[in-house]
């Protein structure tokens, strides 16, 4: 075939052909090994979906892998739909031996060696439906309430631990209130700067319109500022080689 390169698969046949044609003096030493342990079949497409006689199915779809579905999937989507923030909790997916799930006994919702998770709720629900003959909504409620009890207890423990730590002198990083206040302060300062700029622009625009009327407000310099202004020398000189920077249009130089 054109697109495929079968040379890796055909090493043994190639070795035999080269030996028969006397290109090589001897067969390679792995010749018998590969003869005893042949490579597996390649490029075989197993039929995944049974062909139906109702209507003509596309042949390409028949060889594609099928999705794997479990009855717990529906329960999972229901639970995480009702408790979306449970998805934000970190999950440990490292397994020890691969047989971890074999030793779980879902007569309790808490299993040694497993996090209390949405998964435990779903498994507990399945167990109740199977062994206690509960209906699905009933089992969901029972499992859910056990789950809430344990989460509430965790929260109490966390709060008490924080209080104890503060009492004996621990200090923590910034809490959400403090971080929120800092962000607000930063936004406020930025807004003030922007507002100041807007006001300055408006004043300048107004000053342009009424060019004849000098304002008698706080534009007059006093004391030190006045003397400093007198000493100030402008850097640009008219009619010089360097030239003068552009300082505005016709309105400023009437």
């Amino acid at each position, binding site marked *: 075939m054109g697109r*495929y*390169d*079968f*040379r*890796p*698969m055909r*090493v043994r046949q*190639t*070795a035999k052909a*080269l030996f028969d044609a006397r290109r090589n*003096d*001897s*067969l*390679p*030493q*792995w*010749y*018998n*090994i*590969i003869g*005893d*342990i042949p*490579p*597996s*079949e*390649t*490029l*075989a*497409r*197993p039929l*995944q979906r049974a062909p139906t006689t109702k209507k003509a199915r596309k042949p390409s779809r028949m*060889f*594609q*892998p*099928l*999705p*794997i579905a479990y009855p717990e999937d529906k329960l999972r989507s229901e639970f995480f739909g009702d408790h979306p923030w449970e998805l934000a909790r970190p999950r*440990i997916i*490292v*397994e*020890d*031996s*691969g*047989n971890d799930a074999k030793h779980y006994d879902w007569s309790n919702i808490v299993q*040694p*060696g*497993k*996090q209390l998770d949405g998964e435990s709720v779903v498994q507990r629900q399945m167990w109740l439906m199977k062994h206690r003959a509960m209906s699905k909504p009933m089992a969901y409620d029972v499992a859910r309430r056990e789950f809430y009890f344990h989460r509430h207890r965790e929260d109490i423990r966390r709060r008490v631990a924080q209080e104890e730590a503060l009492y004996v002198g621990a200090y923590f990083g910034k809490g959400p209130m403090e971080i929120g206040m800092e962000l607000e302060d930063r936004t406020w300062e930025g807004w003030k700067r922007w507002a100041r700029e807007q006001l300055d622009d408006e004043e300048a625009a107004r000053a342009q319109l009424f060019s004849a009327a000098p304002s008698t407000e706080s534009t007059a310099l006093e004391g030190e500022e006045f003397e400093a202004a007198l000493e100030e020398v402008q850097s640009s000189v008219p009619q010089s080689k360097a030239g003068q920077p552009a300082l505005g249009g016709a309105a400023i130089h009437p």
Partner: protein
Amino acid sequence: MIIRSVARAGRRALVQTSSQPWRRFLATQTDTIETTAENSFKQFHSLEAQFNATAPPQEAVPSFDPAAASAPASAHVTDSVAEQYHRFKQSQALIGKLGSYITPHYQPHTLLSNPPSPADVTLELLLASEAHQGHATSLWNPANARYIHGIRQGVHIISLEATAAHLRRAAKVVQEVSRRGGLVLFVGTRDGQDRAVARASELAKGYHLFERWIPGSITNGQQILSKCRTKVVNGKDEEIPGFEEQLMERPVLRPDLVVCMNPLENYVLLHECALNNIPTIGVIDTNADPTWVTYPIPANDDSLRCIQVIAGVLGRAGEAGQKQRLELAETGRVTYRPADNLVLPEALQEKTVAAAEPGAEMDLDESLEDADELADKLDMANNREMSNHAARAIKKID
């Protein structure tokens, strides 16, 4: 998750150990770990010399020594710091874990220090090693359809039965090639695969590569690898000197089997092997091409744990093959066809002509055997090439 539970026999065990004299209890331990203690002693000698020089000799700081507490005091008066520390470590190993029982859990370092063997390969081990995780369904190579179990959460799941079967087949090939004295090259160029690949080659007495494969090392080997040292070894892997001139004229060596942990990045290497008729083994993910290698192992090449398991299994298989080969070599039988066109240097010829045996048994078919009877009788050699890549950790031999 690691679970510590209170050991039920903890108190009783503690009572038992403390009732026996410490000296006798510890003496049996020292015999078994004496060799490792020697190394630590050497380290501590210098430390001890410094300590004894600076501190006043008679007013040593009293340290609590559980061994000294119950044993007669006269025996421990002259113990040095090193010995006290050693005894402390021993007693800690004995009674440190009393009172709690830690359930068996996954310890990552054991995959490298004590890898599983082909007999230990189970579907549960492969599942825990994440060998079943394939890539997103849109990235697949349809040639791998046979190895895929199904689709879950938008990714293909590799069938672990296929993985286990192909892994055992590849392990058998590695074992047989090692038994026949072939050159096995383990290649893994991704980040983190270096330790697995080096450990596998150490077990199988093969060669490893964890840096980039230099293109042309096989097809243009005479140019690229000409500076590498070659040596002549006998059936027991002992080097025989005196072949330097003959080795200079010989062509550069090529591996007999290449095991690749990431074929997607090493296409050039696998293509060169195909051009030169070298069988290959490769870890084939759902987006890789299974026709690039002779023996595909459908598994997840993105998981380091999976690669460590596969490399460990193949390394152990190679170790078993090498053990068989060396056991046969002890009895005088050589499992491979020795190198041809090698003549013994004169110095050895007189000795060996006198002690020549009728012929070493060969484990090959008669139709394939070379007519080099002289080499057979004198129990000669095989070239072993120290490849440039393998010698990175070792000084270059000029």
